[in-house]
């Protein structure tokens, strides 16, 4: 219970700070819209073909826009030595990490929630099974958040932080991204879901394995 209470306190702190400033969410949503625009020039195709690749486009947008929020996650604590203060506090590394994970998750889901209607309108793609698509979004986003927050903690003290984070996390995220892309494609095009249930298992397995691994190792990364 104490674990959860302190974790939620950290998450609430991050969310409150972000809601007051709105910097990361604004930048992230703008970035997502810019990518949508660029994709419209890059992929000028018939509606049927667009529907086939819509799953891929959607998750590329989510992954790129999410990185902006993940980058700031630990970097915002460097000012005024806040990170040292947090590490010296009774909050354990795992609680700090999990709290930030929860905050990042909420923020990225907000960005996705704002981008999805634009995507639907711009590309004339009406998802057939919206509830399942939201479930896929929630599952996939947790994978991105866990890996992204972990590597944000790892790269927080490096000079080339903004360069290194995307380079490190995108190859790691490939199983989750493939799963999310495949499920989204099936849900958007209306293909039978039965063949693709494997990908739900991949997403869940990815999330569970890396959440446990991250919680186990984050103390070593943050403290030593």
């Amino acid at each position, binding site marked *: 219970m104490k674990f959860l209470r302190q974790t939620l306190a950290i998450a609430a702190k991050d969310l409150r700070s972000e809601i007051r400033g709105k910097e990361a969410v604004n930048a992230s949503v703008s970035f997502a819209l810019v990518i949508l625009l660029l994709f419209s020039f890059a992929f000028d195709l018939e509606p049927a073909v667009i529907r086939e690749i819509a799953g891929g486009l959607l998750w590329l947008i989510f992954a790129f826009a999410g990185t902006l929020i993940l980058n700031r996650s630990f970097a915002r604590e460097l000012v005024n030595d806040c990170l040292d203060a947090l590490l010296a506090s009774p909050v354990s590394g795992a609680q700090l990490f999990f709290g930030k994970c929860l905050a990042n998750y909420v923020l990225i889901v907000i960005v996705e929630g704002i981008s999805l209607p634009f995507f639907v309108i711009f590309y004339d793609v009406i998802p057939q099974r919206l509830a399942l698509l939201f479930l896929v979004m929630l599952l996939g986003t947790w994978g991105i958040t866990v890996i992204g927050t972990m590597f944000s903690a790892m790269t927080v003290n490096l000079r080339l932080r903004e360069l290194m984070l995307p380079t490190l996390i995108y190859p790691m995220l490939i*199983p989750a991204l493939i799963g999310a892309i495949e499920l989204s494609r099936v849900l958007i095009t209306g293909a039978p879901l039965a063949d693709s249930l494997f990908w739900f298992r*991949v997403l869940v397995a990815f999330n569970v394995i890396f959440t446990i*691994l991250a919680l186990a*190792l984050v103390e070593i990364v943050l403290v030593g």
Partner: protein
Amino acid sequence: MRLKIIVTLSVLAGAILAWNLHRIFLQVPDEASQGAIFRIIYFHVPAAITSFTGFYIAMFTAVGYLIRRDLRLDSIAASINEVSLAFATITICTGSIWGRIIWGIWWTWDARLTSYFVCLLIYFGYFMLRRAIDDPTTRARLSAVLSIFACVDIVLVWKSIEWFRTQHPGPVLEIRGGGGMAPGMESPLWWNFLAFLMLATALVLIRTRQEAMRLEIDALRRYANAF
């Protein structure tokens, strides 16, 4: 003593490779559909297995560092990863050439090649991370954690790309088809694997000594600057 081990391993590896090349070119018959090019499998597959073995041994060495905090274990882990990366590059290049012959294109998003490419990217990131950190202890700590994440992730990457390719079939680089290869054709593969392992061990020993030298240089520099 160490130098003797390195030289012995290298010479043995060279001897096995030379003897094997003789077998591969003169004794093993051509494969029915692919002709002479299939012989490249005798470099492609052993290099692949060597690099994968290396990555996982490096992960266990990295875990050893996290438990015992001995910087020598970190040097060993980094050296093994670097040598494995070289062998992974060989795997991808020979696979690409093989694909050029079989399918006429320089790159096929075949499951194995794609997974290897992801592997390559992850470990490029590993070495980028190592270069970005100056302090040896922090570098060892963070690259150990990254190594653990990478090795767990590679399993998932492999399986998910394989499954993706069964749903979206594309060109496949495969020699076996249904069962295994004919018995006479398979043994040079394992001999080459042994030779590659010995070569890799020799290279790792050399690299580990270089890493130890680098640590010594850093320590001496700090000592010199202290006065």
